[in-house]
């Protein structure tokens, strides 16, 4: 399937792309567009104004996608808290990782194409998932 989002991606879009590829559509193909009017007819738009998979009721797009596809994995919801705070910084959740992750993504967006940012952040989110999967199983932070 084809998925479309705004070019020059930051934390929420990078995390959504990872989520889509890992948990929704393994063959996902991403297109990055400058203007909402450029969304290809066969693509599902995300993290853009006025689309279903965007910000709603104070949620970031990552949370919206989890809800929309009924992904109830608690590890993904823990990551959602981090993405929410990195993106919106509204202190709804306690996510001390968020400011650091946000800076890393903002820095990457200065030196990388969107494709390269996705390639680099894929393993970062995989690692974040694994860390929090262990933490959930152990009931405490893994070593």
């Amino acid at each position, binding site marked *: 399937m084809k998925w479309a989002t705004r070019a*020059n991606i*930051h934390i929420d879009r990078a995390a959504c792309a990872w989520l889509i590829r890992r948990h929704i559509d393994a063959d996902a193909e991403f297109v990055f567009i400058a203007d909402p009017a450029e969304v290809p007819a066969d693509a599902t738009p995300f993290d853009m*104004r*006025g689309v279903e998979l*965007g*910000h*709603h009721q*104070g949620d970031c797009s990552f949370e919206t996608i989890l809800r929309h596809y009924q992904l109830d994995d608690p590890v993904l919801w823990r990551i959602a808290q981090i993405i929410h705070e990195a993106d919106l*910084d*509204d202190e709804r959740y306690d996510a001390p990782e968020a*400011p650091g992750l946000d800076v890393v993504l903002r820095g990457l*967006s200065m030196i990388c194409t969107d494709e390269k940012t996705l390639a680099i952040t894929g393993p970062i989110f995989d690692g974040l998932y694994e860390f929090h999967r262990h933490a959930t199983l152990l009931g405490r932070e893994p070593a």
Partner: protein
Amino acid sequence: MVRTSRPGVPGEWVLLSYRIPREPSTPRITIWRKLKRLGVAQISDGLIALPADARTREHLDWIADEILDAGGSASIWIAHPGTTATERDLATAMATARAAEYTKVTAEATAAAGRDETARLSLARRLRAELRRIHRRDYFPPAERDQATAAVDALAQPIPDPEEQPS
């Protein structure tokens, strides 16, 4: 943060023009809080501005959507102030608002200087979080910023025990 491409030429600003129904008041208050948190400059009733960059543009885009969801009207504009004086007035108003926030932090930190170490460290943690919040909406840093940082850093420094001082 560089806002103007050339000296003497006004930079780019992102404007949100909006109207929210008076009732229900909850979305109205939520949106007002979000705008306040972003440190927007109020140009007139229903018209606010921030220096344009990827982050400010994105935050205002989502707030515009939220206003539409709440049954209001909202549009986003990218604009240059017509004169450097207009831009300077906006920037000065924003810097003055931040300066007042920094001054409050400095006062709180200074007032606690004589307290015991546990109380000082706990206050330092809270004030550092507060400073981070202010930094996120500080687009034209006033001199008070460094003073507040120094006052909070001083709180976190251990006070030498007078009895251990060499005589």
